[in-house]
């Protein structure tokens, strides 16, 4: 077991290393110069002033150092949790900007992922091998998974937000409010949260439901299901077993899907102008804030890796087969 996790951790560490390196490298081989964009923001015309300013920022961003040193410094800073200074929100540190956005992203992402996973699995398992129901809901689910996140988001925003006017559209809370633990604010927060949540939830729900349906069908055809059936076990038990076993690949699926889900989250946030990490990504891109972009990217990578690891742990806990396989020498 220790070796299994050791190996997994190894992969994650390596992935992290690669991600960080790519992340560090890309801006250095791509056009765009943070120093100049900062100088521009100062609005200088005089060449001497520009030069002085340029000098200042070059040193601030460490671009005066040899490249290998920049790389090492990058790691050094990173390990201290320092992602650098944002240009978009200069002079705020990237780390604090990200931390401020994280609650919104997680508040959207976690419920959407967990609920859709849970509900999708339940419904998928329920519909499997139920001819009429299956035929009726399967296409709906397929349409849902095939829906681009942003389009569903736009549709919901338009239909429920603009046309029906049931939910507010845009921002994490009303522009007129200040964050505070008051009922007004919380209510407002929830009403702004609902549509983005719903759009993420629906798309993911379809995917999980389909996956579960197929897996359950597969499990219902497995030998152990037939055996239970032959011994007169009621459908309930057979389905329960099938569900339990079918959930396992879904756990792994969750890990594999994370990357995609995060993409969906980004665009959903953009549609709803929701102030999470996705919004930051867009800002970083349009403001050419490479430090922020790097920071968010790293944060996402770390998040995905941690999530993957947690899922690995959960998987080992729920699937005895892996434990046995890892425990025994054979």
């Amino acid at each position, binding site marked *: 077991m220790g*070796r*299994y996790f050791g*190996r997994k951790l190894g992969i994650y560490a390596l992935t992290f290393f690669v991600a960080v390196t790519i992340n560090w490298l890309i801006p250095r081989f791509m056009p765009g110069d943070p120093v100049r964009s900062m100088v521009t923001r100062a609005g200088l015309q005089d060449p001497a002033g520009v030069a002085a300013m340029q000098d200042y920022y070059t040193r601030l961003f460490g671009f005066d150092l040899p490249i290998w040193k920049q790389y090492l410094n990058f790691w050094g800073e990173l390990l201290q949790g320092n992602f650098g200074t944002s240009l978009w929100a200069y002079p705020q540190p990237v780390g604090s900007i990200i931390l401020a956005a994280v609650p919104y992203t997680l508040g959207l992402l976690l419920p959407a992922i967990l609920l859709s996973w849970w509900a999708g699995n339940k419904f998928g398992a329920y519909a499997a091998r139920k001819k009429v129901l299956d035929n009726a809901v399967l296409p709906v689910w397929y349409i849902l998974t095939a829906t681009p996140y942003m389009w569903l988001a736009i549709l919901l925003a338009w239909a429920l937000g603009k046309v029906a006017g049931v939910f507010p559209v845009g921002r994490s809370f009303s522009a007129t409010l200040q964050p505070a633990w008051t009922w007004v604010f919380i209510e407002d927060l929830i009403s702004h949260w609902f549509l983005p949540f719903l759009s993420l939830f629906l798309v993911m729900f379809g995917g999980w439901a389909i996956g579960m349906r197929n897996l359950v069908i597969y499990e219902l055809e497995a030998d152990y299901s037939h055996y239970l059936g032959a011994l007169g076990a009621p459908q309930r038990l057979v389905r329960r077993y099938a569900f339990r076993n079918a959930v396992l690949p879904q756990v792994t699926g969750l890990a594999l899907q994370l990357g995609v889900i995060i993409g969906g989250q980004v665009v959903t946030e953009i549609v709803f102008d929701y102030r999470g990490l996705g919004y930051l990504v867009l800002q970083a891109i349009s403001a050419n804030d490479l430090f922020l972009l790097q920071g968010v990217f790293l944060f996402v990578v770390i998040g995905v890796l941690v999530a993957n690891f947690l899922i690995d742990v959960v998987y080992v806990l729920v699937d005895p087969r892996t434990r046995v396989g890892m425990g025994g*020498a*054979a």
Partner: protein
Amino acid sequence: MLKLDRVSKTYRVGAFGRGTLQAVRDVSFELKPGQVMSLIGESGSGKSTIGRMVLRLLRPTEGTITFDGQDITGLRGGGLKEYYRHAQGVFQDPFSTYNPIFRADRVFAMIRQSYFPGVKDDEWGDRVVESVRSVNLNPDLVLGRYPHQLSGGQLQRLLVARALLLDIKLLVADEIISMLDASTRIDVLNLLADLKERGLAIMFITHDLSLGNYLSDQAVILHKGRIVERGGTERVFGDPRHPYTRTLLASVPRLGVRWEDLPVPETGAHECDAPLEQVEDDHFVACFDDADVHHGRKSEPV
């Protein structure tokens, strides 16, 4: 002709190949032209591994395998192709030996592609037909069919026919009949017997003692990758010395003899590293420790 000298095979298993599993240990024997040698042992004893090493589908971890004096373990490319001109194999599952999506006679075409690219269509057709006839099949009924349209026995015989197109001297038959029905088995066995008459050496791998006995001159009993007993078939079966061989013999269900009449010898074999010991002419037994009898188990859990 074929000689295995202290051949061992260790598989790497598990993550990053850190674990190892010794499937074959220190196996030596020799096979002469026109001889049938049965490799007998229970599942996992390393029979197929040996067969696959002989066919150079695997490389031994240690030891050498020579064919007509040539070491075949290092063969690749052209040399390997030449080797296959003389050594061929037929495998356990006739259905998976054929690529299910192609016609069965594609196995002939593959030979032609590699070994007889120059042969004309007509001539090749004749050769195939002849070869198919020689394994007692009606070419009209079997050529151009898909594998699932043919019976296991037919498929296995086609494979033999395929081998016969080449100038083979050695045939490795790995559990070649274990998947066939009793009624068709014997025909395939008889076919092998005929081949042997024609001077072919056959390595006959089986877990079924009665089948091994039916055909072979030499018997090799394998247990956990090691040869426990080896020698002339009659000697080994007539006078089994190793407790494991005896256990096996006693467990074979036979028509006419009830198990009750053949109690399982209460004995277990202990692993020891000494080389095979000759107990009589053409009969070798591995060392075993009779003192272990009392903590021996009734039967090996699988």
